[in-house]
């Protein structure tokens, strides 16, 4: 479920800015780190930190895009790739310098430990992740599909010239999408940070998972990205339960290669068509 939040943020930023943001995984890690730092400093529980982390990362997300994506809009996509990879390295190295490479634990959302549910021991954190994740996904869906703001956001990502032509202030909506993407990364960082700890080098891994989810689900499609992320989560859990973590990752990458070799346009095709 937390992957779904990562992928959701990734695809929102992708649609808004029209470019792959390789730093998205590092924004997630940054979210985790902010949670760690704020948790240690303020001593507040995860629930209270959540909006704080989301707000901080929303600002960071916008700044990141302003620095490494929007100035390069007129250049070939490779330029943005490189710029955001550099940005990712900046965040990763900055965090390493600041907090060292040792993993830290982010505060739990609703207390740690487990409780019994119908005879099964269920961890509080996984439940919290699933509940909160589902709520957020629902909220985003409602925003995008059922409100005027969401319609405009979709219009901007579908065709920004047309959107501008019908009088939508494009810049403002791009900014809104990027802020939302950043906030989602922050929330995901906080959620993942308790269970899998926070270390500066995790960014590339999160990024790769989100990238795979979006590519498999259909480039730029929001429900596709969610499906892709859930698929990856289920796939990894099943394979790692049977054969161990390393095999799970290996099988995942291998299947990505096979899928791309057979269907170069992703599993569900690409809704936006080729970007020539």
């Amino acid at each position, binding site marked *: 479920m937390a992957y779904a939040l990562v992928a959701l943020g990734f695809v929102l930023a992708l649609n808004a800015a029209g470019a792959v943001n390789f730093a998205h995984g590092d924004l997630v890690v940054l979210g985790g780190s902010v949670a760690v730092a704020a948790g240690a400093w303020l001593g507040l529980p995860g629930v209270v930190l959540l909006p704080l982390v989301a707000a901080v990362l929303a600002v960071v997300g916008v700044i990141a895009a302003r620095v490494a994506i929007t100035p390069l809009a007129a*250049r070939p996509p490779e*330029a943005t790739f490189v710029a955001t990879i550099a940005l990712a390295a900046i965040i990763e190295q900055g965090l390493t310098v600041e907090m060292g490479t040792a993993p830290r634990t982010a505060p739990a959302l609703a207390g740690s430990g487990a409780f019994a549910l119908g005879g099964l021991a269920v961890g509080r954190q996984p439940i919290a992740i699933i509940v909160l994740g589902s709520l957020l996904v629902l909220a985003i869906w409602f925003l995008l599909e059922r409100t005027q703001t969401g319609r405009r956001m979709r219009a901007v990502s579908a065709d920004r010239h047309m959107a501008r032509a019908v009088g939508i202030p494009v810049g403002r909506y791009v900014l809104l999408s990027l802020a939302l993407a950043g906030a989602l990364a922050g929330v995901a960082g906080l959620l993942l940070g308790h269970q899998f700890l926070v270390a500066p080098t995790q960014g590339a891994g999160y990024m790769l998972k989100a990238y795979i989810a979006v590519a498999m689900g259909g480039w730029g499609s929001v429900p596709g990205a969610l499906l892709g992320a859930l698929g990856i989560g289920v796939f990894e859990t099943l394979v790692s339960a049977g054969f161990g973590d390393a095999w799970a990752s290996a099988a995942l990458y291998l299947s*990505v290669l096979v899928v791309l070799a057979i269907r170069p346009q992703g599993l569900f095709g690409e809704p936006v068509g080729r970007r020539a």
Partner: protein
Amino acid sequence: MRPLGVFWLVVLVLPPLVALTLLAPFGQRMVTLVGIYALMGLGYQLIFGHLGALNLAQGALFGVGAYATALLAPSLGGLALPAALLAAAGLAALVGGPLLRLQSHYFALATLALASLVNLVAVHVEALTGGANGLASFTVGLPRGPVLLAVVWVCLIVLGSIAAALVRGRAGEQARLLRQAPLLAATLGIDGGRWRLAGFVAAGALAGLAGGFSAALSGVVSPEATGFSIMVLCLTSVVLGGTRHPMGALLGAALAVGLPELLRDFQGAWLLAYAVATLAVVLWAPDGLAGLVDRLRGATPSERTAPPWPTPRAANAGPRHLRVEQVIKRFGGVEALAGVSITLARGEIVGLIGPNGSGKTTLLNVISGLEHADHGRIALDERPITSLPAHAIAQSGVARTFQARLLEGETRHDELARALSTGPAFVLLDEPAAGATDRERDELVETLRGLRDAGLGLLVVDHDIELLSRLCDRLVCLERGRLLADGPPSDVRADPRVRASFLGLDAAA
């Protein structure tokens, strides 16, 4: 492209000479490392800089080279280094075929997945790779110290000069076209797939060689050699130095090795500084530092001289007829071409007219292979070309120009010249007169007549029916994907259906 002048040649040769005569072993080691990274970057420039494909597996191929050397050195000795090159190139060739068909972001993803796989193997297949501890004590028989330095730099100087010469020549021009206008390149007979595969494999080979050298230098190989940080280092150093400048890889590598020494007191901060510098270069100096240096010392790219007008192929060579038979092309539910048949012979000019959306450009696209017909047959004499890829059709003698599709700094003239440079028997021209002045139109008519008299067959799409009537031997009129009329200009213009549909005149008038 810039030639590799004396200035850069000195920059290239000086470091190893100075290192060998003046520097202590530690300094020599650094210079060797610069050479190694520069080799990897040189390869990366080929695939990323010149062909524009964001390959994220270069670091992993470097690691493959390192492991291959470590595994093979005990039995092969110094030959383990060329073996490392072959191992990396072989892996690249193996996976390159399917991967290189992918569009930009999918290609990046696929190479990233490949790199992650290689890294997993390095960490987890302990029997082969020694797991997280890696491999050590394999360096007997490998060149080390000053010898290694000399070998690395000789390789770099030789390969760097070859790359610079290639880029300056015809190959560089073709790569530029592929990068900036892939469709245009295909219609000129350039096989983009083969180019990218060659670039990918060559890049992999250089990465493998560099990896082998690095194993010889450090004496240990660990999974870090396959990690993403090497990839990021390679990417950032090439961008920093200049993605297409012949010396970009070397400058970037020198910074990658030098900066950590300069900023040694700040520990991890050098990577931070490096990443910040890379971002700055991407934003403000797209030609990289090498380009910047060239600008500062006033060396500008040599002026391009206008190429001579290419001579059309001899009138008797090549196919005599281009036949389109019952071609159907659908887009979704719409039949853009609903069974079109036309024939074009050498030595004639046929004008193709019809209202907007009648299928004129689609017909050109289907003939030149940019789109493929759903039904029907296209043949040069008796040889079918219906399902050939665009570059193969161009090579068989069909060239084309595009509607208003000029590269930067080009004229109408250049476009036609480029199409003719492939030595075609037939040329398809899409609105060659759009936006031209009367005078330019007259020149165009003269030029095209000259080509016809030299024995070429021309198919010209245009809206200017006066121009086409003057120019063409025959007119063909399309409407909604169907052939409305085919014959001498005066007949076609008099045809009541053509008058109604295209000329907008009442049939009775």
